[in-house]
């Protein structure tokens, strides 16, 4: 019988197996690294067309987040306020100052202000604000002390690894619903006891939370 394979084919077959194992290991490592990477930077303020300050409006003046982000409790998105919302105050306050020129131009030309996005999850990730607000996850758990930021930055990397840190053990982070908008909230010493209690009262489905289809659908 003629030999179809030369002797060195044995070595080739062996190395294919080694290569296969190496490939699987590399894949696992790169996926783990990927799951912890994000597409934009943390703690770097984003340049905006108008120098709008949360530290002034939400901090010093004490305006509630919902005055401007009014859909955050009921919809997937916390809306960015339209120019009309600014004008409820700036129709009278500091009219004609250069810092606000962009607001008045937008109001007169009926052109929306082009804010630059700070947070932007990948399009294959589903996210919903109202589900989190209703379950006692505070704004500051994800966005940090917005009321102390002049220009907004991402306080957390918002990678899959970061989301899962909470989805695997929400009891470590939950707070009573009444404290969701309190950015200065400090968790009590017995957070775990409170957390387990809240998981019960808010009917949080801890089995569903870490599953892929919760966020990728």
């Amino acid at each position: 019988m003629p030999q179809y394979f030369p002797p060195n084919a044995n070595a080739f077959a062996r190395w294919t197996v080694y290569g296969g194992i190496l490939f699987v290991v590399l894949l696992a490592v790169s996926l783990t690294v990927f799951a912890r990477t994000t597409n934009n930077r943390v703690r770097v303020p984003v340049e905006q067309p108008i120098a709008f300050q949360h530290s002034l409006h939400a901090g010093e003046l004490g305006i509630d987040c919902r005055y401007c982000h009014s859909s955050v409790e009921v919809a997937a998105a916390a809306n960015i306020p339209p120019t009309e919302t600014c004008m409820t105050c700036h129709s009278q306050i500091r009219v004609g100052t250069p810092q606000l020129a962009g607001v008045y131009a937008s109001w007169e030309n009926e052109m929306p202000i082009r804010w630059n996005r700070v947070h932007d999850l990948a399009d294959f990730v589903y996210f919903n604000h109202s589900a989190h607000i209703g379950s006692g996850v505070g704004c500051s758990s994800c966005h940090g002390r917005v009321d102390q930021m002049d220009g907004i930055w991402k306080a957390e990397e918002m990678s899959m690894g970061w989301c899962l840190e909470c989805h695997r053990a929400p009891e470590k982070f939950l707070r009573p619903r009444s404290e969701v908008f309190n950015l200065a909230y400090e968790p009590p010493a017995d957070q775990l006891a409170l957390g387990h209690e809240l998981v019960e009262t808010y009917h949080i489905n801890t089995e569903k939370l870490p599953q892929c289809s919760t966020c990728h659908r």
Partner: protein
Amino acid sequence: MRRERSTTWRNIASSCGIIFLTLALSACGRNMFDQPKAELYEASPYFSDGSSARPLVEGTVSRQRGSIDATYVSGQDENGLLSELPIPVSLGLLQRGQERYNIYCSPCHNYSGDGQGMIVQRGFPSPTSFHDQRLRDATVGYFYNAMTNGFGRMLSYASRIPPEDRWAIAAYIRALQLSQYATLEDVPEDIRLELLQSQGAIR
């Protein structure tokens, strides 16, 4: 011996080549991160205002409760502004009203309704106190109407506060008005003592 080693190296080289080719074949593009669909707030060169979000077409009818009940939404019937709340009053309604009032109205009208809120202190014209006799005599529909259509230099809040919540706020303003003229007799008997103690009136 010599020959064997060189084949080993050839094999290593070809294995590496195969691994490299497999990796090169797998997709690494980031086109799934920004898919060709309009996500919320995404810019769009297609429309003249540069925004992918479109304003409502004129004459659009909301499918929410209010669209069926015109009086409930407008706060008016054939006799003018409503003088009675179109929904039953409950503690829950007042608490909802308090929460919404504190979010949307307190920056100017203040938590107590005296019209000296934080934004007024920073230069906004001061509204009349809700405890003024003229406003104590006003109907609930009057407050609802101010929120819905705006009032003088105050813009409308209709786009941010749905009708249910506007009625809840109107009910809460009524409660605020009562609160400023309440007497001890209005306090339920079982908590009068506690109240007096907390005020330091008795020990």
